[in-house]
């Protein structure tokens, strides 16, 4: 396994059975700077003391605990290029996509960071292909990362088709792919295992949980880069908008690749007193109606515990239903079954607000006034609908018992983007 640019713990090295430990430089995992411990893997400065006197970094503990008596191994030997980077994708970009793609390539060549602000379904991934291809052909290393595991799982087959002759390593929690490659597809967490390794990092859905509000993950990107970083999102957050004002290059795309406008959500007011033990008949009827039109249906609920309950309620109507949440071990299997239309209705939490793309899919949000549904979450959720050109007007309905700012802001944002 090629470990160039890797930054690993002793335990990780033992599991990999690599022979070139001698080529690594070791450094203490935590060092003291001005009397404060600082984690050398993630840069966190608030380590926790153990009863035996050691300190450990709690910010990146999920990747294996590092204490001030552990070592971190960095591999800096020059890497051998792997893969030809030939683009085996034969689609064409729309003029708008082409313009953004060219602007991106210019920024990356100049070594500048870039933001692609594109509505859901604009075809962000395809716009990246020329730049990625160019970098890998030049023998450079590229990482495509996202805070969401489902985004990675969705991207993996698309990327493998687009770069059929280039090895791609796919890594996320519990899935450590040891392929030698210059193209890494991984969750942002995985970047903590690299140090100044990538000539280009693409961060997809940069404003998504848990990246928003976790500075450690932003430091992970900074620690693993040695070239420009490209950010992709449909809903830039405040830090990104601040960066735009400070001169971050931006490409804006407010049209979907098929040219149709985004489906505008309808807001339907109703009484929710009996949720989640009973589902209002109007919602049940809506679900049955959209399934009858040959569409799949994503039904979003605010709480993890509601997903199986509401799935069971919908199932009574003779539909093929499944419920998923972040805690669900069969999540990937259920999503695959939904994509293949073996499941007609998928009841889910905001975990699937991004990255899941199913053609001909209606979207409903139950209890849309709940705090779990922020404005950007609602925009992303609404963006699951109308992804295919032949069904661009899939219905999107927010079922709610009251109006909230987030609901109105989400609707306004969608109408605004359609108007541009």
């Amino acid at each position, binding site marked *: 396994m090629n470990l160039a640019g890797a930054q690993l713990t002793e335990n990780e090295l033992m599991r990999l059975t690599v022979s070139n430990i001698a080529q690594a430089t070791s450094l203490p995992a935590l060092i003291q700077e001005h009397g404060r411990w600082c984690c050398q893997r993630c840069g966190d400065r608030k380590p926790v003391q153990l009863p035996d006197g050691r300190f450990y970094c*709690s910010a990146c503990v999920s990747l294996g605990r590092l204490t001030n008596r552990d070592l971190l191994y960095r591999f800096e030997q020059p890497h051998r290029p792997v893969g030809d980077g030939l683009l085996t994708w034969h689609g064409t970009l729309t003029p708008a996509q082409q313009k953004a793609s060219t602007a991106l390539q210019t920024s990356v060549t100049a070594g500048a960071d870039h933001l692609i602000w594109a509505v859901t379904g604009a075809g962000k991934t395809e716009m990246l292909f020329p730049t990625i291809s160019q970098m890998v052909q030049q023998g450079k290393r590229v990482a495509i990362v996202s805070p969401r595991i489902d985004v990675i799982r969705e991207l993996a087959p698309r990327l493998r088709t687009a770069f059929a002759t280039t090895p791609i390593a796919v890594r996320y929690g519990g899935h450590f792919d040891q392929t030698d490659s210059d193209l890494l597809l991984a969750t942002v967490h995985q970047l903590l295992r690299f140090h100044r390794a990538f000539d280009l990092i693409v961060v997809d859905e940069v404003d998504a949980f848990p990246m928003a509000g976790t500075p450690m993950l932003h430091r992970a990107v900074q620690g693993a880069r040695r070239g420009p970083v490209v950010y992709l999102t449909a809903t830039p957050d405040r830090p990104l908008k601040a960066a735009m004002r400070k001169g971050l290059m931006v490409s804006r795309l407010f049209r979907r690749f098929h040219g149709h406008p985004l489906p505008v959500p309808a807001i339907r007011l109703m009484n929710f007193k009996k949720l989640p033990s009973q589902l209002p008949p109007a919602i049940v009827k809506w679900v049955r109606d959209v399934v009858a039109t040959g569409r799949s249906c994503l039904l979003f609920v605010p709480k993890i515990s509601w997903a199986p309950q509401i799935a069971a309620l919908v199932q009574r109507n003779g539909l093929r239903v499944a419920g998923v949440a972040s805690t669900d071990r069969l999540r990937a299997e259920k999503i695959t079954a939904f994509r293949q239309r073996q499941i007609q209705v998928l009841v889910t939490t905001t975990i699937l607000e991004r990255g899941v793309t199913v053609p001909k899919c209606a979207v409903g949000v139950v209890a849309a006034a709940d705090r779990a549904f922020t404005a950007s979450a609602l925009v992303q959720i609404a963006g699951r609908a109308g992804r295919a050109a032949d069904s661009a007007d899939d219905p999107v309905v927010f079922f709610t018992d009251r109006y909230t700012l987030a609901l109105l802001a989400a609707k306004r944002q969608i109408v605004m983007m359609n108007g541009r």
Partner: protein
Amino acid sequence: MLHNRALFVYDAAMKQWIYQYKGLGDYRLHDAFQDLIAAQLQNARTLIAIPSESKHYDVRGFDPIQGLFGGLQLQPWLRKSPTAKPQAQKNRRERLQTPQSFTVLVPAAKLNQTKQITLVDDLYTTGRTLYHARDALVAAGFQGTVTAFTLIR
């Protein structure tokens, strides 16, 4: 039979919690259940923590049971001698066949100053560990009753 009370069942969430606390060694989690546990054990007379092996302490840097029940007064009356394999890595049959590894560190006279001992541990699976601890106390001459309290079963 050993009477055991537990606060939680061993579901996916508790499995994840145990993994992060003991497996990854995230000591921050040690006080997560402190208030709940204190409320449950406020009437217990004598609490004895199930000790862990010293080599585990060296790796983790903390004793998970001492951390979990840290707000309470625990008697250090038991010691655990090294075993070949931790309970967590065994299947049910192997767990049940585990030999006795506890020794009692105080004389019978001291033990019998109390009538009731509550053993405290994090997880009750087959109960092997807790039964061994009780047997060791009885073998050392303890004549009162032994009950157990675990966070999870």
